């Protein structure tokens, strides 16, 4: 009996890795640009469909398809910030929410128009189904384990970029005080665009993994946004390690909820989020 629970928790931790991947880009845009991109989940789903198209129509392996989406994610994020989001940034809270909200609806329905409403999954062969024994009756899938490791590597990578590189310092400078940056001649719009490019990179990485692990359809975006948002808020705004922990908590809550009743899975995640949020609105690991 205990083994079942240990197994569920391990599975939850691994699921949390995927959620943390979803949340990492959101955490960055919240921490640096101080806005929540309502279309975040839809952009992840958009790239997942791109991976699907690359594998089915060009016959590429999921790995190659995923690698191709990385530069696309970066450039896409850069252009999105430069030509759309930047135009409404700093004009109060409403415009940026409404623009990303409109974008979310456009992406969802555009995907539905192109791909139809069917649920999809990108086939990745034996890799998706092979498991490793961890002992004690705990079996973990190779794919979930890879995703979890990728989430940890992503936190390290982002930390490295933000705190050990010149562009990272510039991004943090603009995030600290955008007015001061403009005053001394730091090109904040371009730096924000690079930051959003990095967000786009994380979107592409999480989308690739999502495409091979979970089912998705054109309307999957909002639930991805919500779980990402919950992970970001739970972890403390702008704290990347906190975001990882937040994702893991949600993953555990969902698998344990699902253990009681499959229908409880998602609701259990929300309830755990709301409960922790009521007790600690600043998140578990607030940055400031």
């Amino acid at each position, binding site marked *: 009996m205990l083994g079942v629970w240990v197994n569920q928790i391990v599975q939850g931790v691994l699921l949390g890795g995927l959620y943390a991947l979803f949340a990492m880009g959101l955490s960055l845009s919240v921490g640096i640009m101080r*806005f*929540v991109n*309502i279309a975040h989940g839809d952009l992840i789903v958009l790239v997942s469909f791109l991976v699907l198209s690359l594998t089915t129509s060009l016959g590429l392996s999921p790995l190659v398809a995923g690698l191709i989406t990385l530069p696309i994610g970066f450039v896409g994020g850069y252009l999105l910030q430069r030509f*759309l989001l930047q*135009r*409404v940034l700093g*004009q109060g*809270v*409403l*415009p*940026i*929410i*409404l*623009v990303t*909200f*409109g*974008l979310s*609806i*456009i992406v*969802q*329905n*555009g995907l*539905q*128009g192109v791909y139809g409403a069917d649920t999809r999954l990108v086939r990745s062969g034996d890799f998706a189904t092979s498991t490793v024994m961890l002992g004690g009756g705990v079996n973990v899938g190779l794919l979930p384990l890879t995703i979890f490791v990728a989430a940890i590597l992503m936190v390290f990578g982002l930390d490295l970029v933000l705190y050990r590189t010149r562009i990272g310092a510039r991004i943090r400078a603009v995030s600290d005080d955008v007015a001061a940056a403009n005053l001394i001649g730091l090109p904040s719009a371009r730096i924000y665009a690079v930051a959003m490019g990095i967000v786009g990179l994380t979107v592409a990485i999480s989308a690739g993994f999502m495409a091979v692990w979970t089912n998705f359809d054109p309307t999957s975006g*909002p*639930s991805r*946004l*919500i779980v990402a*948002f*919950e992970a970001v*808020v739970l972890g403390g*705004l702008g704290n990347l390690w906190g975001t990882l922990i937040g994702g893991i908590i949600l993953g555990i809550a969902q698998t344990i909820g699902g253990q009681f009743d499959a*229908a*409880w899975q*998602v*609701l259990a995640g*929300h*309830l755990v*989020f*709301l409960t922790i*949020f*009521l007790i600690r*609105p600043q998140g578990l690991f607030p940055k400031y």
Partner: protein
Amino acid sequence: MATTTVATRPDFKALLVPGGRLLLLIGLAVLVAGPWLFDPLQMQVMTQFLSMLVMAMMWNLLAGYADIVTVGQHGIVGIGAYAFFGFAVLAHFDPYLSIFMGGVTALIFALPIMLIIFRLRAAYLAVGSWVVAEALMLGAGKLSAFGGGSGISMPVSVVKQFGAQAAARSETIYWMAFGLALLAFVSTYFLMRSPIGLGLTAMRDNEEGAGAVGVNLVRARVLSFLWTAPFLGLAGAIVTLQKLRVAPPASFSITDWTVYIIFIVVIGGIGSFEGPIIGTIVFFIMREYLAEIGVWHFIILGVLSIGVILIEPRGLWGLLRRVVPGDLIPITYGSTDKRP
């Protein structure tokens, strides 16, 4: 009215405000004469129109004035729908009282919801309210008395209490929707003209300024949120009566009660009284002609609303207002044109 404008045709411009008001009155007259003018199908559409107008006015009050940009409005509408069903079908209350209880229940639920989402600001509040609405919808799916995840239809016996014949019933529902819309409009109008409302308008224009004139912003935001809840709950009860069933995804429909509503208000003109009215009219005209093109309908709405925000954040009414010298529904006393 337009004495300060140095326009080429001041006579024409001066006519725009009274002309616009006349149009509003004609619209009101058409609504009053609705049951005699419309066929049953049109009555249904007009009932939907009025319900969505109420929701648009409420979202506009929150997002346009009180700085509460919620994406979880469908949560409150759904509570009203389920409460109505619960009181009317399960508790066997008087059907009209049950509708009223839909509003009361929404207000009661609004209190704890407020405790959660008011800890968040701006975009965080937006997604936070969405999380709450999701949780409510999933929670509603766990209520077996309400048909669980697949929902349940209203028994014919309850439905017939609103009119034995379909035609009589749709007329009753229409009048309720009309009454609700009128009540929402008039009472919100007077709310906006009260000191609290003037403070909200000042907050819309300049948050620091509102603090300076001594308006308690927290209290004004709390009041606004609680104000909208019963109206949204009542609207939820009325749409349930139209659909004759409750089901989590339909009663808590994010598309119908939040996505469409946001588009309506943004396109019509956020932060004005005219905006939601214009937006709802435009939305229903578009739906009439564009609904059959499916996903493109949404894409056009999305592109249109982004375009509006980039070009004229005050929407179609903001565009018209460049020509029209005054508000049709003036909220601030004695002002015809103070906006730059």
